[in-house]
């Protein structure tokens, strides 16, 4: 695959990447507190609105990269500044740009200490995340991928909960350990082909041994990010200790980078190795689904429940992606988006609850729904989405994934089904405890229901949950061509 000619006109992707950085520089000059909050909200909202312009010029019928930008960067080392998006990355870029304003809004009252530094970290994160999904040069990709570590660990380590330092360091070392192998693989690919250009690396006739080796390096680094069982152990700590906005960023965007890596690199660059190792990955996904669900069922901390549910949901995403059939892979990609919306919403909901009750314990927050009916409504909808209730977004995604799994093998699909049931169990458990409670609940009569800011914060998530759930066609349509192209590469490679 070759990179199409750079498109003329406004370098939209560069603007999307660097606007948050400029906004961060401006934020450094503002006084901490209100001004910085409003500025961050204004900047991220403007960037979010601007990113929607990507939709207008995007041609969903082709798998070609669009909005391509290409400039010389470090010619001596063969690196280019190359950007571009296809259907898969378009949705993820939009997810990133649209969710960041809500992260700012979610930390409006929760973060009172060192607001300026907090917002600067968030904005730098946005730059790095957008960069990851748009980079078409492998080194550029890696730079964005790694530079995320610093602001993210600071978000966890400074503004997090009581065990924040341990969580931040664990997150950092885990991710770093994964990505050093990635860097070796990137260099090896460059020495083999003479280029760092991601499209040019795809669909090349590397021999199987080399592919297995590269796949292994990719896999460890992306599986840690997803996180797949057994590399998931950093996730509960990071999620639980992070401030609400950090959890949302982690769940909605950072975990997607792992599955995005599978779709963008593992499948098209090492198709033979993918075919060879897919069964292994599929069963790991099944373990993740079941294990994540069971672990979530055993927690009493609300954030931990959502964190472990992430492991399960991401298991569905990898299950779909590695089923390597159209339905399954599209479903897997859709699960990525769904998880971003639903889990982000759940983390914000838990954050709202924590701000009021100062606890995330399931039994201590029992029955709070009686005093917070509006909140209970939102929480209920999010939980239904999380358990893949028909009419919500997750239903479509998981349905497609299970359909794909059936095409691969009956055993696989049968093994995945209990995951759905377990998901229903832990979500209903949240709902039952928090919304209804038992007979003698703690006294929550002083707790106020959510206000206008929080309703504004939660409504868009609900809109997307129902929109994808009832009318998924436009979302699927955007990425269908790109995924078809990836699967074609794989079928061409099949001996």
């Amino acid at each position, binding site marked *: 695959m070759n990179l199409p000619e750079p498109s003329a006109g406004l370098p939209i992707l560069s603007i999307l990447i660097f606007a948050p950085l400029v906004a961060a520089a401006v934020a450094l000059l503002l006084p901490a507190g209100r001004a910085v909050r409003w500025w961050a909200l204004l900047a991220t909202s403007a960037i979010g609105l601007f990113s929607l312009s990507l939709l207008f010029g995007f041609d969903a019928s082709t798998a070609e990269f669009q909005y391509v930008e290409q400039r010389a960067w*470090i010619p001596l080392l063969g690196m280019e500044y190359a950007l571009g998006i296809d259907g898969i990355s378009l949705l993820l870029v939009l997810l990133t740009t649209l969710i960041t304003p809500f992260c700012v809004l979610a930390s409006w009252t929760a973060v009172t200490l060192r607001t300026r530094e907090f917002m600067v970290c968030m904005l730098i994160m946005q730059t790095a995340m957008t960069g990851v999904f748009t980079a078409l040069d492998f080194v550029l990709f*890696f730079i964005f991928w790694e530079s995320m570590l610093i602001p993210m660990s600071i978000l966890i380590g400074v503004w997090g909960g009581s065990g924040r330092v341990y969580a*931040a360091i664990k997150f950092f070392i885990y991710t*770093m350990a994964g990505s050093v192998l990635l860097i070796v693989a990137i*260099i*090896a690919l460059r*020495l083999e082909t003479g280029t760092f250009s991601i499209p040019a690396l795809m669909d090349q006739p590397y021999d199987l041994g080399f592919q297995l080796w590269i796949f292994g390096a990719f896999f460890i680094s992306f599986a840690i990010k997803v996180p797949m069982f057994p590399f998931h152990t950093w996730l509960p700590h990071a999620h639980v200790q992070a401030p609400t906005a950090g959890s949302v960023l982690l769940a909605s965007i950072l975990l997607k980078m792992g599955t995005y890596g599978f779709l963008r690199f593992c499948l098209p660059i090492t198709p033979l190795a993918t075919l060879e190792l897919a069964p292994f990955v599929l069963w790991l996904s099944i373990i993740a689904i079941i294990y994540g669900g069971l672990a979530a069922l055993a927690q009493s901390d609300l954030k931990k429940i959502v964190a472990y549910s992430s492991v399960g949901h991401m298991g569905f995403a990898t299950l779909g992606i590695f089923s390597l059939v159209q339905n399954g892979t599209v479903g897997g990609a859709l699960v990525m988006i769904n998880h971003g919306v639903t889990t982000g919403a759940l983390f914000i909901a838990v954050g709202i609850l924590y701000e009021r009750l100062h606890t995330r314990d399931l039994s201590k927050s029992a029955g709070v729904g009686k005093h917070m009916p509006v909140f209970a409504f939102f929480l209920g909808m999010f939980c239904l989405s999380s358990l893949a209730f028909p009419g919500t977004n997750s239903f479509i995604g998981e349905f497609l994934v299970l359909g794909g799994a059936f095409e691969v093998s009956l055993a696989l699909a049968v093994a995945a089904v209990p995951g759905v049931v377990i998901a229903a169990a832990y979500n209903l458990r949240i709902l039952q405890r928090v919304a209804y409670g038992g007979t003698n609940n703690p006294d929550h009569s002083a707790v106020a229901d959510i206000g206008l800011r929080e309703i504004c914060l939660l409504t868009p998530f609900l809109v997307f949950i129902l929109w994808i759930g009832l009318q998924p066609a436009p979302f699927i349509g955007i990425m269908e061509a790109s995924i078809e192209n990836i699967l074609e590469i794989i079928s061409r490679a099949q001996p």
Partner: protein
Amino acid sequence: MPDAQPSVFFAFLPEWIMLAGVLVLFVLTLGGDRVRAARWVSVATGAGVALAVLATFRVEAVLFDDAYRVDAFSQWLKLVFALGYIGCVLIGKNLKDIRGDVRPEYFFLLATSVTGFLLLAGSVDLITLVVALELSSFPLFILIAMRRETTAQRSQMESAVKYMMFGIAASGIMLFGMGYLYGLTGTTSLPLLVERLQPVLHTPLAVAGITLTLAAFFYKLAVFPFHFWTPDVYQGASNETTAIIGSLPKLASVLLMLRFAGAADPGVHTLAAVFAVLAVGSMFYGNLLALAQTDFKRLLGFSAIAHAGYTLIGLVALEETGFTAALYYATGYLFMILACFTVITRVSRDGSNLAITDLAGLHKRSPLLAATLLVGVFSLAGIPPFVGFMGKFSLLTAGLQQGFLWLVLLAVLNTVIAVYYYLRVVHAAFFTDPPEDADTAPIPLDPATVVLCLALIAAITGLGLIPGPFLETVNASLSSIRP
């Protein structure tokens, strides 16, 4: 070589300015307490040298009977040395941990040493090279001993003697090796020597000659097993002296190693094997021992050993990509280490050594220093977008290109080990609150320090993201050291 030989005066301009600065500083030492004046003369000299280098950037000349060469390669390095020199002087500030009566002398000796470094960049004859090397080394021995004495403790003397003994021994080995090379080729002129070495390159004698010559540079770079002085000297010398020892000589030794290793090609497996073994030894030794340190300077000492190991990966390749990468990395390292020491000298009120725990709450006491530390330490750890990442990346590329997969894998394993102790520093500065009895007052920064911090952050990030100009010039001019 250009047709018209530029005047000796013009081509040698940076060195002239440096020498003039040294003389002025010498006069200053004769008077009373003139620290401030000496400090500003030093900064002005450094700035003058940097400007002169920029003015003479395109000049190519061979001076002093082929003993000294001015070209883009040497000019780049002189520029980096000049900037590093300014950095060291600004870090020293008012030399709070140096005996009061010798403070102007401190600046004089530092300038003398830097003169040596500048001359090293251009020397292409064994004799000029040795003279320049010793000129740069001897003042450093004295600088270490100039730390203020604390009661019942003379660790600065111990450090100075250690550094000197090791240094002299290494120089002796180097001279021994140079003797072999001279015997094989019958010349002291490096370009000629490299050329005449080609037919006999694979003989044990030539390999032994090159390896022994390199010993002195291994010592300066703190390569295992020539590293024994490092942690003690880092700890015993005053903070500002350690900043100097940790930065400028490293770059100089990489430069000199290239001058000699440049004679070889990837076919000289013995030499490649020597470099590879030393690289692995340094990386593991440095990183594993750094894990256990509590003194920040000592930690940086062990990390210096590890970084010497990374740098050697570029030499293992024995070809241009690797050499460029090694030089690039050493240049980046200079700025990273200066960033760390800027923080150390400012946080340590009375100039005493700094434990990692003393950094607690730094982000509240001085956000700018904390940011500088963050950039420096993460760059050392090899996290993008800083120069430490791009440097390691180019080193690993060079290594893998010559098929040293095992070495590259060991190097990345070491990167992960190293992350832990760098994170401990970040942890202290950002994530912990200082204990009750600790000094929590904000740290006031003078304008020079603010400028220094911002410049270092800019240099570390800029070199990491836009290394193009530097890499290309160095790579293109490497031909001057190749047969």
